[in-house]
């Protein structure tokens, strides 16, 4: 009689979702597990499909903008801008320069709120609840700013075809500088808590490794693509004036690279994390 050695190779199926307390959003993952390792996953999506494109077919051009708020609801201003730009391209409409700058500023603020939420949630999933709260606090400063700019924190509906809803409020520059400083402080604190934290490094370094070739083959863009080592930034690519801009990016190809970086600013570079 021979004793079998080694771990069992049997796998079992586990259904995760569509509603699950440990993940954000609704998606159904049908997992194939071998002990605690996921060896395969079938991902079923569509639970958040709300037929926006179909509804947009019966709306006026500017009435579609509120639908776009709700696409990526963590960075609604970017969606607003994206939609408006698409219509303007089709119609050959040029946006006044001030409007373009306002859109860029609004998109950057929105992008920051998105990253704060994402990184905060990541930290929370790994157990660092404090970092999550710091990030949400930072995000709150930006939401107050967006509230002053658009009239709403999240459902901004800020752009119109050909421009934006309204000019910047009179005290915007001052408020923005105040908010940006507070955000950088919060991010800096979170950086000190996480980046060289042994537990965080063990949980993230070397996990979720994706190669450059795979990332390009799957059409991945954004921070995910940059974390694999391809320094592609859509902002640089799409706006001629920004072609030579250098955005702080990350290197390496693992999940740890998707950690917070302070907003780009000369003065803080000395205080901020390398890379």
């Amino acid at each position, binding site marked *: 009689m021979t004793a079998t050695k080694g771990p069992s190779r049997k796998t079992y199926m586990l259904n995760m979702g569509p509603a699950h307390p440990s993940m954000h959003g609704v998606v159904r993952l049908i997992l194939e597990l071998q002990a605690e390792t996921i060896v395969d996953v079938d991902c079923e999506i569509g639970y958040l499909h709300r037929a926006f494109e179909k509804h947009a077919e019966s709306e006026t051009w500017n009435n579609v903008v509120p639908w776009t708020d709700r696409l990526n609801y963590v960075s609604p201003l970017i969606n607003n801008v994206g939609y408006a730009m698409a219509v303007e391209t089709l119609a050959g409409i040029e946006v006044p320069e001030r409007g373009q700058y306002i859109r860029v500023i609004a998109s950057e603020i929105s992008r920051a709120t998105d990253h704060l939420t994402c990184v905060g949630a990541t930290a929370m999933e790994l157990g660092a609840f404090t970092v999550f709260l710091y990030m949400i606090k930072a995000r709150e400063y930006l939401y107050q700013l967006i509230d002053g700019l658009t009239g709403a924190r999240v459902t901004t509906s800020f752009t119109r075809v050909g421009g934006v809803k309204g000019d910047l409020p009179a005290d915007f520059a001052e408020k923005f500088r105040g908010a940006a400083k507070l955000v950088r402080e919060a991010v800096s604190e979170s950086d000190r808590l996480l980046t060289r934290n042994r537990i965080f490094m063990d949980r993230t370094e070397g996990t979720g490794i994706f190669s450059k070739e795979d990332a390009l*083959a*799957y059409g991945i863009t954004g921070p995910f693509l*940059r974390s694999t080592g391809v320094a592609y930034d859509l902002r640089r690519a*799409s706006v*001629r004036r920004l072609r030579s801009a250098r955005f702080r990016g990350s290197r390496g190809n693992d999940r740890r690279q998707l950690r917070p970086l302070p907003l780009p600013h000369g003065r803080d570079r000395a205080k901020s994390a390398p890379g």
Partner: protein
Amino acid sequence: MTENRLAGERRDIPAASNIESLSDLKGQGYNVLVDMTCVDYLAQGRTPRFDVIYRLMKLDAATGMDSGRIEAHCAVGPEAVLRTAKDLWPAADWLEREVWDMFGVSFVDRPGIKRLLLYEEFEGHPLRKDYPISRRQPLIGPRSGDKADSPSFNLHKPSITGQ
């Protein structure tokens, strides 16, 4: 900016040899499939009715700069079947499923195409122009075939638009 740098130059490729044309374009350096979508020209009365659009981008991985985008338009009719671009770009898998789901343009040479966003029992392809936004779907019960046992499942509410 009057020029949208993301718009891309338009090419028309024949449906029967879509893979050859796309392969050609990939060989010319268009290494990233950015998006794939479809447009229904029913209102314009055009035949063939659909345009399946592949949006490609030339991205230099070393510098991170893109040097050009292309939109490859492939005119097909409603019953047409296109060959899959999955082997050229794995990203095409879900993009083709979405085109099938929303427009009913099918793709072959791939494991059976399934809907991506909607459920299999859904009838019709909603982004087609002849699918009205207010159309209702048949009520479906549990997959086991049992009838839904709550009376609230069987209420048919009138549509807001009255259609």
